[in-house]
Structure formats: structure tokens, C-alpha cells
């Protein structure tokens, strides 16, 4: 018994070391860095202060944070309303069709995400395929401004995030005991009522997981807004990117990262709190 326990601990050692080194240490490094100030070139210098955090009050950052949250929120919402029916359909369809749909869902991951977003960029050009098509069909006279808008960023983000919503929801729909739904119909619920009072609560764990998995990465994404939004759409991720690679202000980039970390940490905490809470639904 004792030796078995030792062996398990030994097997977990590389993972623990990895986490300590690359997650724990880097976190401490980032937090420490955020308390310093910018030095010559790519350096940082003391003394320790909260000056960087004081800078966050400026309208530029507040605006960017609100925009990031709004776009991430919209992305998540669109993923919910597009992804849930799709996940439901995959789980309920014939096994052969289901396999193909799952492959189609995962297939885009075989290509680098950056390349795929470039694909969208080409699609959105003023003289790109989408505008050409719309003009040929006579729906528009002059090319629409598709690229470098909030809309194009949103399309790109939904496109990138939707598999992360569909997969957890699919797995929770697939595990539903359908006699529960039959029981609710039997007790007098219409199909819609049965869906809302039984199917939705029973798939809630998958749905919440999907929401967290879409919202959290959406706040930090920077290359999609960079490519499809240009300089018009300054998301939080773009700010970090700019501070680091353009202004070479590592301490302030670290400060922005700490803010993002706190925000996502808060969401995960909320998610934990919500998990498996019993509720008295009717009276």
C-alpha cells in the first residue's frame, strides 16, 4: 500500500514540477514585474510601487476593458444560441452522421488558427469574394466596409470559439436520460416546457463549462482583433501586445496581464459557486 502511494506520488512529480516552474513561478514573476517600472530598452527597474495600477484609471484602458468584455460577452452569447441547437442536434442524430459532424467540428484545428483568420480577412476585403458575390447578386451597389469593423472581429471570434462551446454541451446532451424528458411530457409539459424545465437544467453543467471556455479566452484574444479589427478595435489582449512589443514596457504589460488574470479568476470562482446547486424550482 505504502509503496503504491509512493509510486503514484513519484509519477505525479514531473507534472508538479512543470506546474511549479511554468505556472507558479511565471505568475509570481508577472506579479512582481507589475510592481516595477520601465527601464532602458527591454529592462525594468525599481523601486516597487503601485504606479502601474494607478495608470489603469485612464479612459483608454477603461474603454478597452469594456470593449473586451462586451465583445467576449457577445461572442459567448452568439456561441450559446448557435452552438446549443447544433450540439443538441449532433447528440440526437444517427451515430454515423454524428461522427461526421464531430469530425467537421474538429477539422479546422488541423490548420493553424492564424492562417484561418487570414482566410477570413481575404473574405472580408473590399474587393474580396464576399463583396463581389453580393454585388454580382445585385444586393449592393458599392462594396461594403466589412474589414476592420467590430462586426468582422465578432465573426472571427465566434468562428474561433464555437467548437469550445459545442463540445462540452454535446457531451452533456448525449448523457441525458431521455426518460426524464418523457416523464415531463407525461406529467403535462409541452415540448418547449419539457425542454426548459428538464433538458436545459440537466445540460446546465455542460452549458456553463461551454460559457466559461468561450468567455475566458475571448477576453484575452489579440490576433483576431489585430487582423480583422485593425487599430479600431483595441481589446485588452491588444493592449498587452502593444505595451510589450511596441512600447517595450514590460512592467505595464505585466500589470495588464494581472488584471486579466483577476478577471478570469473571478469568473472561474463564480462557476465553481454555481456548480451543482440544488434549487427549488416551482414553489
Amino acid at each position: 500500500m505504502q509503496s503504491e502511494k509512493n509510486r503514484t506520488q513519484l509519477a505525479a512529480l514531473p507534472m508538479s514540477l512543470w506546474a511549479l516552474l511554468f505556472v507558479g513561478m511565471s505568475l509570481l514573476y508577472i506579479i512582481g514585474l507589475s510592481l516595477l517600472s520601465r527601464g532602458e530598452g527591454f529592462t525594468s527597474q525599481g523601486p516597487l510601487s503601485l504606479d502601474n495600477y494607478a495608470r489603469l484609471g485612464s479612459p483608454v484602458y477603461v474603454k478597452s476593458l469594456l470593449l473586451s468584455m462586451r465583445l467576449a460577452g457577445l461572442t459567448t452569447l452568439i456561441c450559446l444560441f448557435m452552438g446549443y441547437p447544433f450540439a443538441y442536434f449532433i447528440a440526437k442524430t444517427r451515430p454515423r452522421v454524428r461522427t461526421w459532424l464531430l469530425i467537421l467540428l474538429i477539422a479546422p484545428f488541423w490548420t493553424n488558427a492564424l492562417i484561418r483568420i487570414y482566410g477570413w480577412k481575404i473574405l472580408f476585403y473590399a474587393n474580396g469574394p464576399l463583396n463581389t458575390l453580393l454585388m454580382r447578386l445585385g444586393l449592393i451597389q458599392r462594396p461594403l466596409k466589412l474589414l476592420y469593423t467590430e462586426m468582422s472581429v465578432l465573426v472571427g471570434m465566434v468562428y474561433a470559439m464555437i467548437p469550445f462551446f459545442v463540445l462540452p454541451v454535446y457531451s452533456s446532451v448525449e448523457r441525458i436520460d431521455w426518460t426524464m424528458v418523457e416523464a415531463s411530457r407525461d406529467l403535462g409539459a409541452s415540448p418547449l416546457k419539457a425542454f426548459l424545465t428538464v433538458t436545459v437544467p440537466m445540460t446546465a453543467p455542460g452549458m456553463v463549462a461551454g460559457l466559461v471556455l468561450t468567455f475566458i479566452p475571448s477576453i484575452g484574444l489579440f490576433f483576431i482583433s489585430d487582423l480583422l479589427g485593425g487599430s479600431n478595435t483595441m481589446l485588452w489582449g491588444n493592449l498587452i501586445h502593444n505595451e510589450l512589443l511596441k512600447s517595450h514596457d514590460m512592467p505595464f504589460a505585466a500589470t495588464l496581464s494581472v488584471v486579466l488574470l483577476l478577471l478570469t479568476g473571478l469568473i472561474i470562482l463564480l462557476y465553481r459557486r454555481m456548480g451543482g446547486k440544488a434549487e427549488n424550482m416551482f414553489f
Partner: protein
Amino acid sequence: MSETPLLSLRGLRKSFATQDALNGLDLDVYKGEFLTLLGPSGCGKTTTLRIIAGLETPTAGEVYLEGQNITSLPPEKRAVNTVFQNYALFPHMTVASNIGYGLCMRKVPKEEVKERVENMLHLVQLEGYGKRMPSQLSGGQRQRVAIARSAVLEPKLLLLDEPLGALDLQLRRQMQAELKKMQQQLGITFIYITHDQEEALNMSDRIALMRSGRFVQLDTPHNLYEHPATAFAATFIGETNLLEGRVTGIKGDDVMLDLDGISVPARTQDWVVPGQKLCLCVRAERLHYARKVPDSTCLQGTFIGSHYAGSDRTATIELRNGQTLLSRHTTEQEESVQPGETVCVWWDMETASLVRDDREGV
């Protein structure tokens, strides 16, 4: 019974992709009745129940509730409720919410829902359990919640799909009595599914014995046991000896059978014709044997042995033609016959019935 039946099934058929589940069912169920669908697994019991509940659409035929054709009504529009085999309690709702669910769907005022749920909890002896979650209940308690959840809606017809299947024997016996009592208290008509013949005999007013999507026999427990219609009905319920034979002659109410060279008299049935091949069914407890030979007409056999089962003992006797017969008697009446001894076997003519041989093919 001249009143209109509560439920009528007419020519009900159901085909699934690969096979026929129901092959034309006709059934009338009357108000207040406890009707059991009994049969081996795969005989179509559950499919029948699901069609009555509206969870399955029949391929052909109609379902009538109080004379109204409800074949195409969705489940939520039928005054019929189901107790599912695995209970299907909503895991995300408390016991009280589970029981109140149907009432809330019916838009019953909240105060009344509360009151009726309390009454129901009292009836199923689960007072004070309203705030618990289904996962915190024992199997027997969940079972009672499932019944309460359906019964609170006061359905015209309650369908129960092997509701006691998951319980252990002792609890099962206790619940059988409770269910029967509850059915009489509530005055609700029950259609009950089981594959347990003892349960069916104990609880039912009538039993519909099913096989391969057809009714084999629809009768009271007494008649089903005492006068089985076919060899399948005879063997499915109770311990039975089936003696294959041919009709050699009919005289009035009596018929002479040739059982492998031995002539045996039996009471005739209206469908029996001379020369017909059929079976004579003799229940194990109605078959007697003794060492002495009372008269020459008895069947002779060899005593093989017996096995003890507490209150009674079942003896195995092999006839000259190689067929083995079972004879069950209480341990008090035991006769000390040694294995290998020749014994005489007999039964009272009135307790044996002629049945159609439907054991092979369907």
C-alpha cells in the same frame, strides 16, 4: 360489464425497423380495475404501455379513453400518467418539486399545489421528505415519490412499468400490498407491467398474458391459473406438467386421450375435435403419486428423486415414454419413496385442462 370501458385498444399494431412489436391488440379496461400485462421480456408489454401513454405512435390501430379517440394526442394532453421503470425522478428538483411538477404544468395555484403535495407525501408515508433531493432517498422511497408524482394528478388511468423491478424481494412484497391498498384508496385504474407471475397473481383483477406482441389469454388470476388457454399460458404461470397427446374419442363432456399408448380421460373443451394433437395440463401440486397401485388406469413411472424447498418438496417422476413429471406436495404429506422405485401417478380429472399446443413457433 355493459358500461363503456375506460380504455379500449383496437387492432393496435407497432412495427419497428427490424421487427413487429405488436401484432394487433384488442383490449378493454374498466374503471377501477387493476389490470396486469404479464409476459416474458420483449413480448411488447412496454410498447403497449408507451402507446397508451402517447410516448409511442402505433403503426396501426386506435386508442380510446372513455370512448374518445386519443391515438394522435400528445402525452401531455392525455389524462393518463406513467410510473417509469427507473422512476425517472428529476434529479435537479426536490422531492416536493418532483411531486408538484405536473400540477405546476397545469397552472394550479401555488397554495393548492403545496397542499396537495403535502397530502400526497402523507399518503406515501414520506412526510418531512419534501425538501430532500431524489439522490438522498432509498430505492423504496424513490419508488413512492414516483407513484406520488403521477397519482397527485388524479389521472383516469395510471400506467406502471415494472415499478417494483429494482427492489429486493422483501421490500417488493411490502410494496405490492401498499400499492394495492393505494389503488383502492385512490380509486384509480391501474395498468401494471410485470414479468413476475407471482406479483401478477397477487395484485391483479385481470391479467393479460402476452407473447410476441399478442395476447395469449386475458382472464382473472384464478381462471388463468386453473384454466390456462394454451400450453404457453400453462407453463408461464406456475409449475406445470404438460402431457402431449391425441384425441381418440369424444363422449359428451369427456374426451379420451392417447398419451403415448396410455389412454387417459379428460374434460373436453369446445374447440377439441377427434384426432387433434394437444396437451393436457396438470399443475405440479395437483399431481399425486404413490408406491401402491390403486387401480390399473393410473400411469406408471419411476421415482427419480425430490428436492426440498422449505414448506414443500418437489418430486421428479419419469414416465415409461421418458417424459418427466413434477409433483409438489407439502413436506408433512411426504411419502418415503426411494429413487428407482416404481410409482403410480394420478390426478383428479377436474383439475387437469386441455390446452392448445403453442409452444413452438408463434
